[in-house]
């Protein structure tokens, strides 16, 4: 089939037929999709194209920047004064807490040293600004203004002043992509602050969901969930979410527990990118690990047959 609906005379060069072209490009796209979604092997290509497209992207922000500057310029002085007063008040209120925290941290370190525990590394952090929400409607991601140049690495935790926001998932030269907690493929290990019950919190679009807890687990509406620190990504004790309600009477064995994130996930502002926690638990013995892995592999293969 040609464009006009008839095959062109052979002396007009028009390249391959549309159906051939379609098959070629569609197959190529499908291969790319499989390589990216299933095997995650295309990050280098993404990085290259993103770096090349960076000037274009920067140019597209110019009108937004201009609008923002205009807004800043027209901000009323009274608003600024009010904000300033409020900030002063809050600073005074929290000053003594900060002083005490330093003291407590020092004391804690000493006690840990005494107990011969591995010292928790004092977490370094970097302030970044959320530039915009990624356009992809199928995921929940934001772009921050720090990247490879500022030593941001994939896997770092991101928090704001109220709690955990998410995790850096992709790093570009000058920006980084943060996957929010509400993304469906994002999970975070938490514990209930009240009783220390550990669980996994998963994203579910607009809210969060506490997964795989037995129907009679001790979770009540209003409970605060904090990070448990079991994953070596998030430091322990950061507030994450609040339990909305607990549905015990479901057909499954697990309770349905929707939660609301504490951090302002939808707002654009300053965030803190925490340094990667380098101290890891000691690996199991070298000889045992490959044997166990091989055994697991065999088990999987046997299972799939």
């Amino acid at each position, binding site marked *: 089939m040609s*464009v006009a609906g008839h095959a062109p005379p052979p002396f007009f060069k028009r390249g391959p037929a549309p159906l051939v072209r379609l098959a070629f490009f569609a197959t190529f796209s499908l291969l790319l999709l499989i390589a990216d979604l299933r095997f995650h092997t295309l990050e280098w290509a993404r990085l290259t194209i993103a770096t090349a497209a960076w000037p274009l992207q920067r140019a597209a922000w110019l009108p937004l920047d201009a609008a923002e500057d205009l807004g800043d310029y027209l901000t009323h002085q009274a608003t600024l004064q009010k904000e300033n007063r409020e900030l002063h008040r809050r600073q005074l209120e929290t000053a003594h807490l900060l002083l005490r925290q330093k003291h407590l941290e020092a004391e804690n370190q000493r006690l840990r040293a005494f107990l011969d525990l591995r010292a928790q590394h004092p977490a370094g952090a970097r302030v970044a600004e959320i530039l915009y929400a990624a356009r992809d*409607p199928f995921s929940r991601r934001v772009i921050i203004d720090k990247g490879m140049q500022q030593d941001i690495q994939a896997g770092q935790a991101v928090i704001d002043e109220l709690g955990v926001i998410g995790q850096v998932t992709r790093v570009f030269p000058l920006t980084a992509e943060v996957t929010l907690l509400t993304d469906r493929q994002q999970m975070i290990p938490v514990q209930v602050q009240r009783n220390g019950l550990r669980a996994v919190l998963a994203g579910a679009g607009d809210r969060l969901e506490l997964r795989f807890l037995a129907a009679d687990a001790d979770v009540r509406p209003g409970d605060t969930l904090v990070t448990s620190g079991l994953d070596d990504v998030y430091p322990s004790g950061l507030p994450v979410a609040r339990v909305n309600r607990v549905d015990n009477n479901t057909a499954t064995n697990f309770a349905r527990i929707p939660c609301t994130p504490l951090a302002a996930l939808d707002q654009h502002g300053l965030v803190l990118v925490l340094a990667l926690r380098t101290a890891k638990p000691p690996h199991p013995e070298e000889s045992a690990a490959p044997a166990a892995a091989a055994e697991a592999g065999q088990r999987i293969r046997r299972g799939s047959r």
Partner: protein
Amino acid sequence: MQPIHASRRILRPVNRLFIAISLLVALLLNLIPFGRLPGIPDWVLLVLTFWCINQPLKVNMGAGFLLGLLMDVVDGSAMGQHALAYVLLAFAASGLSRRILWFPLRQQALHVLPLFLGTQVVMLLVRLVAGAEFPGLLWFLASASSALLWYPLTYLLLLPQFRPEEKDDNRPI
């Protein structure tokens, strides 16, 4: 020569540079970060469809594939998602171009609306298979707003091809 219903004008040949520039401007418009605001048209999709219908021999599946890859990267979506959707769109648009061009512009918009919706459905299927969340029905508003823009966009993009009107009653066409 292609019929433009409203004016029945004979068009001048298209400038390849103008096609490239229009696609680049569409890409720039797509890069403006609107976040999750519903109803923002996909400009690249719109301009690509326009050229696939009006110049099917110059803009085709290859252009769709390259633009799609670029959109995949700048959107942060799965590699190949836009590429696949745009390639299918380019195939359908260039195949239907001779038929669509005979209709007046408003009916052309009705013709391209299903094409846009189909593109969105392809992207949706690809991502749902990969386990992403359903973005909500409001997301399909983007197709409607794109189709609404078909009328002004046609005039804008055909502007360089119009020749000055001659008042000649004896002209054969």
